[in-house]
């Protein structure tokens, strides 16, 4: 059987050119929109027209490095959170129901008049709409590097150069009240925390033992990734430390569609130019391991003595795959497709690489396992294709899979997946991927 390869073809870049270093492009979970951070602003692009939809400006004094869409919004409303080097995170709202912000700054209205018509019907109604800066979330001492919402939107995680991860919750009574409270300040990393990612809501993700279902991962300059879970007291604790990378872990992504009911694996990419996959060692007798000295010591709740002793790490994670080395320099970004399971990576060397898991090898390895403890089988990943100098000599800061909504997709509009790379040259470029 001929080995499958990928053909990666560049499509027309999103307009306008930003002429500023761009850091991240995050697609909206459902709508054909893409939010790109550059300098101290965010430009939202329409994926139908591949051109600018709106701009978020004026909220941050320093570079905006990260952005995340708030999930589960009512129709016509957009909300996102920006993370900035000014040590704050900003909450922004776009109200497309006509009740949005009144006359805004003259410059932004003009910008919108210049842009092409938005094909998205919901937002076409009121040309005077703009993003409203609702809230500043302050607290971090240093630059905020990443922001992420939990799958339900209940929690927002932010991380910073101050080595801490903060978890925020909106405790406002009604929707849109915006009373954000800091639920946890987690300072266990030994270095700058570069990224945070929540485990997606998949069948394998369930509350286990004393912990609730939400799982947060954080990647750091200290070469490790930490996994955090919320225990019965509402305390966020570190349940595992993933060591193995030889350099800063720039980020991670959870497996978007794990097999069956398995707990999602974690993909990490690092300054050591490798990509690794980590799997949770799922064991059955977790309940019995609870507290070596009998449960009384560890009983907690409002009435009892809170457990302040350092609980032993509750989870064991193994590195079950290291991708073949394609990159020559730091890998800044990787994306795992929910649709095809293909991983795309990009980084400082300007190379885009695609990988896919070899299912045959994984199945064979699983069959060969005869030990009583379920050891997660190693998996092999094959390189499907690469592109060099994707942004010329410039570094690629971000790569993401994204559904195509432009006319070029033909009948597969809304289904076909493309890649979007974000580079230091300020160019946001989509790529068509064909696997043969």
């Amino acid at each position, binding site marked *: 059987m001929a080995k499958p390869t990928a053909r990666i073809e560049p499509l027309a870049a999103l307009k306008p050119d930003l002429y500023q270093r761009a850091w991240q492009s995050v697609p909206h979970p459902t709508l054909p929109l893409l939010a790109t951070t550059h300098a101290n602003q965010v430009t939202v692009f329409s994926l139908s027209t591949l051109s600018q939809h709106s701009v978020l400006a004026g909220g941050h004094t320093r570079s905006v490095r990260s952005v995340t869409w708030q999930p589960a919004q009512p129709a016509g409303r957009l909300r996102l959170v920006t993370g900035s080097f000014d040590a704050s995170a900003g909450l922004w709202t776009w109200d497309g129901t006509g009740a949005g912000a009144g006359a*805004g700054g003259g410059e932004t209205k003009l910008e919108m008049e210049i842009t092409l018509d938005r094909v998205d019907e919901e937002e076409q109604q009121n040309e005077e709409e703009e993003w409203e800066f609702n*809230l500043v979330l302050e607290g971090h001492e240093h630059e905020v590097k990443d922001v992420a919402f939990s799958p339900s939107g209940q929690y927002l995680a932010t991380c910073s150069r101050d080595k801490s991860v903060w978890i925020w919750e909106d405790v406002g009574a009604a929707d849109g009240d915006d009373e954000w409270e800091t639920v946890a300040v987690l300072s266990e990393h030994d270095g700058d925390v570069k990224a945070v990612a929540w485990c997606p809501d998949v069948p394998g993700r369930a509350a286990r033992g004393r912990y609730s279902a939400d799982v947060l991962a954080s990647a750091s300059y200290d070469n490790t990734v930490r996994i955090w879970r919320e225990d019965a007291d509402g305390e966020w604790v570190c349940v595992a430390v993933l060591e193995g990378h030889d350099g800063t872990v720039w980020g991670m992504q959870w497996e978007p569609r794990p097999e069956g009911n398995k707990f999602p694996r974690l993909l990490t990419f690092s300054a050591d130019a490798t990509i690794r996959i980590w799997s949770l060692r799922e064991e059955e007798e977790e309940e019995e391991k609870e507290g070596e000295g009998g449960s009384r010591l560890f009983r907690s709740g409002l009435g009892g003595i809170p457990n302040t002793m350092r609980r032993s790490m509750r989870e064991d994670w193994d590195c079950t795959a290291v991708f073949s080395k394609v990159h020559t320099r730091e890998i800044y970004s990787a994306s795992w497709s929910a649709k095809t399971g293909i991983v795309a990576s990009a980084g400082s060397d300007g190379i885009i690489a695609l990988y896919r898991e070899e299912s045959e090898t994984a199945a064979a390895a699983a069959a060969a396992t005869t030990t009583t403890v379920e050891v997660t089988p190693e998996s092999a990943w094959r390189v499907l294709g690469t592109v060099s100098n994707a942004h010329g000599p410039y570094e690629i800061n971000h790569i993401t899979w994204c559904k195509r909504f432009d006319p070029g997709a033909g009948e597969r509009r809304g289904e076909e997946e493309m890649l979007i790379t974000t580079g230091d040259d300020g160019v946001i470029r989509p790529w068509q991927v064909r696997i043969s």
Partner: protein
Amino acid sequence: MDDPFEDILNLEEQFYQDGYKQGQEDGVKAGRSEGRSLGLEKGFQKFIESGRLYGRAIVWANRLPGASSKPAAATEDTNDGQEKQQHGEQELTLPPLPKNPRLEKHITTLYALVEADTLSTENTDEAVNDFDDRVKRAQGKAKIIERMVGEVTVKKVQAGAGGKPDEV
């Protein structure tokens, strides 16, 4: 047969050994005094931090509604300017905290983390790590409580997009 010239021919070796021994003794002495002062310094820093957090935890805990009203003799020293209210029941000089179960939980945890008697003063790796870990977690908790109680956590911004930058 001992070589009569052995000593003379091995002079360097002897000087080396002398120097080495002397260096080692000096090193040990200097190391001890340096280690002692470093230990004192670090120990002081660590315990003053944990004590500070413990003090704050006590004050917060006593400000919680439902806490027994004890004479506020042990309140923090920043109360210099405040008058003590000599009412029959309430002798607290600080306003009570709002009733909030989450807040109570945070304060309870903070208190437990830095309770003076439970912190070990041993110098073993395990004890030191435990101490550091608890103090770090306590600092995080203190930040959360501060935000819930005192300083304004979030600022609502009135400026529209594209307007004046917000004063951060």
